[in-house]
């Protein structure tokens, strides 16, 4: 993925790195449940923008990294992100022509799915949430989608990543 010509793939890697940092950045206690799924947002953007470059393998590696950083069961986030990426790969042509609101709605569904899978694996471990609060990140992720989209699209055009 990295060494194909003069393309600025470091941008993709840098954005993933930033997303990982945002994923563990200390949050105020009352906001803890609503932390957006940054890694998922960035990954979904790159899958839609560069479906031939960013795919399942990227999702797997990124998910494993997120598992380690979060201290989750190894494979939990990898599983969730692979499923989300698969759906995004199947939908990317439609997603590209959707309006911002429609895209946000799809992101809401994808993030919700991500949370459910994570919850499912955590329940296997015996540390699941007892309330439905774990679905809150789906809302915050959907709300942040337009912001992430514009930022990453601007950067991608600036550096000509394709």
């Amino acid at each position, binding site marked *: 993925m990295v060494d194909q010509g003069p393309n600025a793939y470091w941008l993709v890697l840098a954005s993933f790195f930033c997303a990982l940092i945002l994923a563990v950045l*200390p949050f105020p206690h009352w906001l803890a449940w609503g932390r957006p799924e940054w890694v998922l947002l960035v990954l979904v953007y790159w899958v839609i923008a560069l479906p031939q470059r960013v795919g399942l393998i990227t999702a797997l590696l990124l998910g494993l990294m997120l598992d380690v950083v979060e201290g989750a069961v*190894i494979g939990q986030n990898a599983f969730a992100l692979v499923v989300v990426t698969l759906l995004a790969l199947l939908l990317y042509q439609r997603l590209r022509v959707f309006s911002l609101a429609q895209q946000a709605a799809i992101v809401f569904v994808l993030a919700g799915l991500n949370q459910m899978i994570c919850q499912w694996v955590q329940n296997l471990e015996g*540390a699941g949430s007892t309330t439905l609060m774990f679905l809150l990140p789906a809302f915050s992720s959907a709300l942040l989608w337009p912001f992430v989209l514009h930022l990453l699209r601007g950067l991608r055009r600036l550096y000509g990543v394709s």
Partner: protein
Amino acid sequence: MGLRLFLVALVVVVLLVADLRFNSLQTARSLMEFAAAPVYWVADIPSRVGDWKNEHLVSRSDLLEQNEQLGRENLVLQGRSHQMASLLAENVRLRALLNSSAMVRDDVLVAELIGVSPDPVRHQLVLNKGERDGVFVGQPLIDADGLLGQVVEVSSLNSRALLITDATHSIPVQVNRNGVRAIAEGIGSLTSLEIHHVSATTDIKEGDLLVTSGLGGRFPIGYPVAVVSKIERDPGLAFARIMARPSAALERSRHVLLVFTAKPAAGN
């Protein structure tokens, strides 16, 4: 895409089973944790900036006041520690008379928090001390007020600790007043622990201090764990429903202590 999907799915399933069922990824995890160290380092910058601000942008009068307060505190603590020294010596003599081995004071290592688990259900801390500093898996972690948890993962630079309030954590405790033993289990809330399997007639009251009992050999004896906050005795149930509030400042401590226990001290 079909083959790739199959391969990826296979890898995910194998990893999940290996970690959940057989717990066999400890080495791989600590290696990857080492690779993830830059992420923690960057994520910790805001709190370091906060610390720097607190240290350097303080008015003179505040510093003077703080200095005076610390001086007073130090005086009181020193006074107490003189008394402590003689009590300790007396304790050792008495224990020698009773033919039990002496209680040895534990060594501690100060560690700084560089991350907390982003998942509110998972109560874990990331510390800036690792294998290099002699941290080991299972090491108890305390703060100024009581027991915090234990180390569950060690990489060369960092380590990860599980708090006593995590839903997967249990700890053997005893009531400080009369030595009644019990198990305190985390329920995934930072402010409460559940005490299990204490029969309804046991002598345990609200406000009782629970300390580590040292049973199980993982935690040293005598560190405060929690204070009993609520007891419900339902005649229809075999056991009392007991909740306790952790003594340690679980969501506030930034500096924590890793305890190096001296080898088997309890001798009864």
